[in-house]
């Protein structure tokens, strides 16, 4: 009996080849699309539009990662920009001082995938991990409680980060001085209120969209996994979830740490983008709110909805620049109307292909 059961389950299991394809195909598609954006579409649409697309990518990373907490898990974090700040400054310090310590200058080493880029990718991961660590420290005490405590704690955390960064010293730019300085000196010399100026421009469409693709894939797969189901059950009713044997604190903290990690990566991307300056004032409360708005507008829990909302909220103000007298009013009005008419966001929990009309269209297409 035992053997035949195993035989039957083995027959149901996909073959190794098929499993490998379904596991590796999506990341390969992401990398392919990012490369297409970087090498073909970017040069074709010109520098300015490429920059807007880069901004969109960073916004997508921020919004989709916050969706893990505010969307899936139903918690309310309003300090997402603080994790971006932590990741940005960590990544920035690694790239900036790393360049000086390894090569003695800020000169970019090699082109695409050259040594500078490798350092940059390592720095992005360091930024992500630093933010994830901060997320763990902030999340563990506050997520044990139920209710709005997380909102207050994340708000406070954002302010703490802002004040700490404001008090740092000026960036060092003398190679000998940097070589002689201690790591603590380097970590506290990140520009203070003037911002971390002088970071090399290493962020491009490729890396931004690899990160955006990664966070989208991660979120979507998480949503379909047992962990994601647990998160959604916490969102719907925490007591019932607990009664069903779900360790709610552990899952909430996990989601929060994942979100912080991706926000840290977004910070690193932002820090090295052309025409941005990492500075504490602008990565404050207002920025956190922009991200919350993207999630709420797109639909709490919908990966595609959040992505679309993030893209729209970056492109719209730019497209409306010619009507700049009214653009902020129109922007605010749109948001208020959406909140009144569709409080669950444009898409709710659904993904694009789960909307009835789209589903019908897809089916008829077959």
């Amino acid at each position, binding site marked *: 009996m035992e053997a035949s059961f195993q035989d039957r389950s083995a027959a149901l299991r996909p073959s190794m080849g098929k499993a490998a394809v379904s596991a590796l195909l999506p990341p390969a598609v992401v990398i392919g699309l990012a490369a297409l954006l970087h090498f073909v579409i970017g040069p074709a649409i010109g520098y300015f539009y490429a920059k807007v697309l880069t901004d969109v990518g960073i916004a997508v990373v921020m919004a989709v990662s916050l969706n893990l907490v505010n969307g899936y898990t139903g918690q*309310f974090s309003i300090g997402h920009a603080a994790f971006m700040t932590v990741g940005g400054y960590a990544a920035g310090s690694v790239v900036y001082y790393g360049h000086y310590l390894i090569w003695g200058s800020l000169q970019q080493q090699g082109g695409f995938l050259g040594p500078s880029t490798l350092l940059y990718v390592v720095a992005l991961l360091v930024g992500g991990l630093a933010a994830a660590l901060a997320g763990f420290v902030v999340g563990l005490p506050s997520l044990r409680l139920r209710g*709005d405590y997380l909102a207050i704690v994340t708000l406070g955390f954002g302010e703490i980060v802002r004040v700490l960064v404001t008090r740092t010293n000026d960036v060092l730019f003398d190679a000998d001085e940097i070589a002689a300085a201690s790591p603590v000196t380097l970590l506290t010399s990140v520009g203070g209120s003037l911002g971390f100026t002088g970071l090399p421009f290493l962020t491009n469409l490729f890396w931004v969209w690899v990160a955006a693709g990664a966070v989208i894939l991660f979120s979507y797969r998480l949503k379909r996994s047992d962990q994601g189901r647990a998160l959604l059950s916490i969102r719907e009713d925490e007591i019932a979830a607990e009664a069903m044997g779900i360790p709610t604190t552990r899952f909430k903290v996990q989601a929060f740490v994942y979100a912080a990690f991706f926000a840290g990566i977004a910070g690193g991307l932002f820090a090295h983008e052309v025409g941005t300056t990492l500075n504490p004032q602008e990565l404050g409360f207002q920025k956190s709110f922009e991200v919350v708005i993207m999630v709420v507008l797109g639909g709490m829990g919908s990966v595609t909805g959040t992505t679309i909302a993030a893209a729209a909220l970056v492109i719209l103000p730019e497209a409306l620049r010619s009507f*700049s007298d009214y653009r902020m009013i129109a922007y*605010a009005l749109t948001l*208020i109307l959406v909140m009144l008419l569709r409080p669950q966001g444009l898409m709710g929990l659904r993904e694009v292909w789960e909307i009835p009309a789209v589903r019908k269209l897809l089916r008829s297409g077959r």
Partner: protein
Amino acid sequence: MALFPRALRLAPILLALACSGQTADKGPDAGQGGGEHGSDVILVGEYGSMTGAEATFGQSTHNGIMLAIEEINAAGGVGGKKIELKTYDDAGKTQEAGTVVTRLVTEDKVVAVLGEVNSKLSLAGGRIAQQFGVPMVSPSSTNAQVTQVGDMIFRVCFVDEFQGFVGAKFAAENLQAKKAAILYDQGSPYSKGLKDDFTKAFVGFGGEVVTDQAYTTGDQDFGAQLTSIKQAGVDVIYLPGYYTDVGNIAIQMRAQGITVPMVGGDGWDSSKLAEIGGPAIEGSYYSNHYAAEEDRPEVKAFVKAFTDKYGATPDGLAALGYDAARVLADAMKRSPSLGGKDLAKAIAETKDFPGVTGHITIDDHRNAQKPAVVVEMKGGAPHFVASVAPGQ
């Protein structure tokens, strides 16, 4: 209730809050110049804070630039071509500044960029102008780092080091002060820089900075800092902040019974200063780029033209905007072509240009060498007291 979790119920309220903050920041007048540009015009870009917390800075500068360009065009333009200005609002944010300068340089293809007032924004925009080899002239960013970005970045104002020196010299020599207190904004690089430069110069003049107290942008209550300043018993108080904070500090200071004179920098330069500070700010001094009553022909002509056009006395930022545009036009006339390299070289060769804010010579570090003035607040308006030339 499942459809309406707690977080979702909070969202609309917080959302409305966030939006009201955003719309309140944005005034109705976001300057929008530009239009079609054919071959018979020279397109120049401008970025500035037309809205946001520093909106008066951007608007004043814009008015000064517009006046200069109208005069240049009326006098035949540059080599027979008219100058056309394309202006974008950066709302006082570095990310916006980066985006609009990218747009000016790569989409609108301007030959040069004018901007910003705030050094932080000049640094953000300057790196892009430098990257694409388009010259940028900042009218009034006084932080030393701005022109260190690269060989395309210039300014027509003095740097903070000189301004701190002027403040210290005035306090030590004209006010006969021996002991000074400083109250500065630790969230602002401008304020922190001036604090250090003033301290260094004041000690050099034989004075002593007895106490320096800090506040953070947005603070409303300065009671604690002022109490310790009062106890320190000083002859002069240096306030290297922006006009909003300075006005509030002045009121609270006088209310505490501190009567010693206050001295500040060009961050005070706004008509709002007297509005906020009222009688408390009377009898205070600040270093500035020019004074409207100076007895020079350039100043007289400019003040008259500006008052005729806008119905208000120009402040220092308007004068610097005017000078920045004219220095740029002058360089265009001398430059063999309007390419970035040629134009930058021509700007760098500017020597003894008769600007409203003094004779401008661009030095090797692409900064302007020129005098500063000290003005006194009297009857709600600044009045000329002294002029200090560099190297004195």
